């Protein structure tokens, strides 16, 4: 397996405060890699550096061996990296299908075209992406009135518009009910398997992480403190201390049931 993404000593400081320090990892082809850690551990900062929103203080990011230094998010996107956001960033004034068409127009580099009507362009392609994420029946609905879970699925469809090789998903299931979470992650798993996409995602729901991730990395105070399979991470003493906790919640829970 070849590495899709590789970071080398990735670090970021904000005014002297170390947000991310010397983070090294690789994402292999077809891999679902989870990045977990407490709030403020630097997950989003990490993501923003991978996607070009933030410039690293030091360190490099390589995509298929190519240095991404100095590239803007839109340029990294054109190299085949898709992204979904923790707080969805869809176009509220458009319909569902227009949201997808917009990304397709961008992918086909016709942003400055002023001859054709936009809503007639790439309709079929957009529709098939919506079918893929199960949103075809809502194609003509106004994006501003979609349920939250549907917005997340729409964002996934948008992220697939440029046939990405790598997908970065920042808390893909935040704010969703447990059943929806499993559904969305199952969908993601199927899509990436069929299309041979690698995924790096952050997540707080440990059920989702332990069920779906092939490999898990734990970030704490800007540093990677663990990197391994579900089993290894679950039993790692440091991870339990800083992130997973002692599992008191579940113990007490059982006590109550037993009582």
């Amino acid at each position, binding site marked *: 397996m070849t590495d899709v993404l590789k970071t080398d000593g990735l670090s970021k400081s904000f005014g002297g405060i170390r947000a991310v320090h010397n983070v090294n990892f690789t994402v292999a082809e077809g891999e679902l890699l989870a990045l977990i850690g407490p709030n403020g551990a630097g997950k989003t900062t990490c993501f923003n550096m991978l996607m070009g929103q933030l410039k690293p203080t030091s360190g490099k990011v390589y995509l298929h061996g190519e240095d991404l230094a100095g590239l803007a998010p839109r340029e990294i*996107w054109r190299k085949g990296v898709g*992204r979904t956001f923790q707080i969805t960033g869809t*176009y509220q004034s*458009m319909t569902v299908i227009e949201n997808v068409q917009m990304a397709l127009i961008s992918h086909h580099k016709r942003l*400055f075209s002023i001859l054709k009507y936009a809503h007639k362009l790439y309709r079929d392609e957009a529709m098939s992406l919506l079918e893929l994420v199960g949103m075809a029946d809502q194609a003509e609905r106004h994006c501003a009135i*979609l349920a939250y879970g549907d917005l997340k699925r729409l964002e996934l469809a948008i992220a697939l518009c440029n046939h990405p090789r790598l997908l970065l998903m920042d808390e893909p299931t935040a704010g969703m009910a447990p059943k929806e979470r499993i559904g969305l992650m199952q969908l993601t798993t199927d899509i990436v398997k069929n299309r041979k996409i690698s995924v790096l995602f952050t997540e707080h729901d440990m059920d989702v992480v332990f069920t779906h991730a092939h490999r898990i990395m734990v970030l704490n105070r800007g540093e990677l403190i663990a990197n391994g399979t579900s089993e290894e991470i679950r039993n790692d003493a440091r991870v339990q201390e800083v992130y997973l906790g002692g599992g008191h919640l579940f113990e007490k829970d059982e006590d109550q049931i037993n009582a």
Partner: protein
Amino acid sequence: MSLLIAQFLTGLANAAALFLVASGLSLIFGVTRIVNFAHGSFYMLGAFIGYSLMQVLPGFFGFWSSVLLAGIAVGLIGVIVEMFVLRPIYKAPELFQLVATFGVILVIQDLTLMTWGAVDVLGPRVPGLKGVVRILGEPVPQYDLALIAITPFVLFALWYLITKTRVGILVRAATQDREMVGALGVNQAWLFTGVFFLGAALAGLGGAIQLPKGGADLLMDFNILAAIFVVVVIGGMGSLPGAYLAAVLISVLNVFGVSYIPQSTLVLMFVVMAVVLMVKPFGLLGREEVAGEHGQVGEPERPFKPAGKKGRIIVAALLLLLALLPVFGSSFAMVLVTDIIIFCLFAASLHFILGLGGLVSFGHAAYFGGGAYVAALLVSSAGTPMELAFLLAPLGACLAAVIIGWLCIRLTGVYFAMLTMAFAQLLWSLVYQWDEFTGGDDGLVDIWPSPWLAETEAYYYLTLIVGVGGIILLRHTAHTPFGYALRASRDSSRQAEATGIHTKRVQWAAFAFAGSMAGLAGALFVFSKGSIFPTELEIARSFDALIVVFLGGVKTLSGAVVGGATLELVKDYLTRFEYWRLILGVLIIVIVILAPDGIVGSLRKLGERTGLLREAEVSK
């Protein structure tokens, strides 16, 4: 050397009033998120009220009590404005409130005219401070030294209030999240009113305190507006020390400007601003986050599609009616409709960037007047044929928009708005002061169309074809990928950037396009009137377009067109009365309060409620 120091001291003294007014504006904006256009009016009221008080209160203490009382009086007027005009519309889209404050400007203008008449008054000399002090041999007025001494105390008192007291903490908290402050048990209504009182009182103080150095006249409201916006932008939004620094900088430079380069005094401060912003985009002491985004105004706009059959038939019928106007209408009607179409095109071009792009430009007149001046100058100075000049006007406006856009687009929110306004003022002052080339205040006259277009009827058809054509082109563009990319950049610049859209470039292109269309309107305008004056570049002209877009309804292009037609008609009717500004101002305020979605938006909602229009889908 001694002269330089004396000039520096004069500048420092002049900074006092500027700082007081600007800090009030900054304070009000910080908490209420309202860019209070009426702030210049508060300043003017402070000057007039202070003047009247000084006539009755004699002596040294009389003077200073008059200044204080003027501040308090203007503060109370501010409270009235806040309670009766702004309070009902805090829930309306934020920028809509701008329009209301513009209505307040008009009302205060006419009320001042009624009370004090159309005379310029000179401020009294201050008893006890009439003399001069010799510093290094140069005379420096005692009053200047008093002002120099007072201002730092005001700055310190304000700074203490904001950073150290409970009220200050609440004000800062409300700046960030008013609703949450309310949910924690703080009566935010009174907090807002209090801040408005303080802000208005500072403006009033500023007006009164400058009386001995200046005076009071009816133009001082608009005259100071650009200056205080520049100060706030240079200093950094919401920073009191920044406002002080910037006020000093501007005033001192102005004094030197008057002495050494008297031809460019007006231009100077805008050049300074442009330089500062290129180095520090958020002002000397400003911070990024307070400025806001190029956001959408109010609830998300609904998806739109090109007009259906029914819509096209209605528009075609309306156009047919307009085309037949020369057959049944008087030439007066043709002139009126010509004016209306030109104004609608101007407003529609602003709607393109404001409505679709979320780019709130306060200086759109730069391109309207700019286009008009390009055409006029080509004809008068270069003897260019009218047809060629007409075609080059939008190109000239486009060029201006490309340059100004490049400088402005990097900023967002209020900074963007104020910077666009400042550049419009820069253009205005260039035209105003460079009189050997532009005719200055006297304008350029005798700019008539070629003989084949000289008849009212022929020019009417030209306007109809070009004007309506321009509006249709704007509408068409909104539906193309370019228009969609512009909306996408507004809706979520993060998502747009993450999917390959160079949002700044899209916005820049849109800004240039809108500028050229405004320039086209300007070309139509100049040949229909046969003359052009600097007023077409003024802040008031930019505000006209802004008001029309908001009053008509910012969500649809038809809003801009309907609003443009309405305002032009209403103005045509009202200007026959002496106090037409008062009536127009009240009218604007009433519309803002009663129809917060704009004319078209409110009609649409009314139609939906009564079942005449199909209801939009709502979420469950």
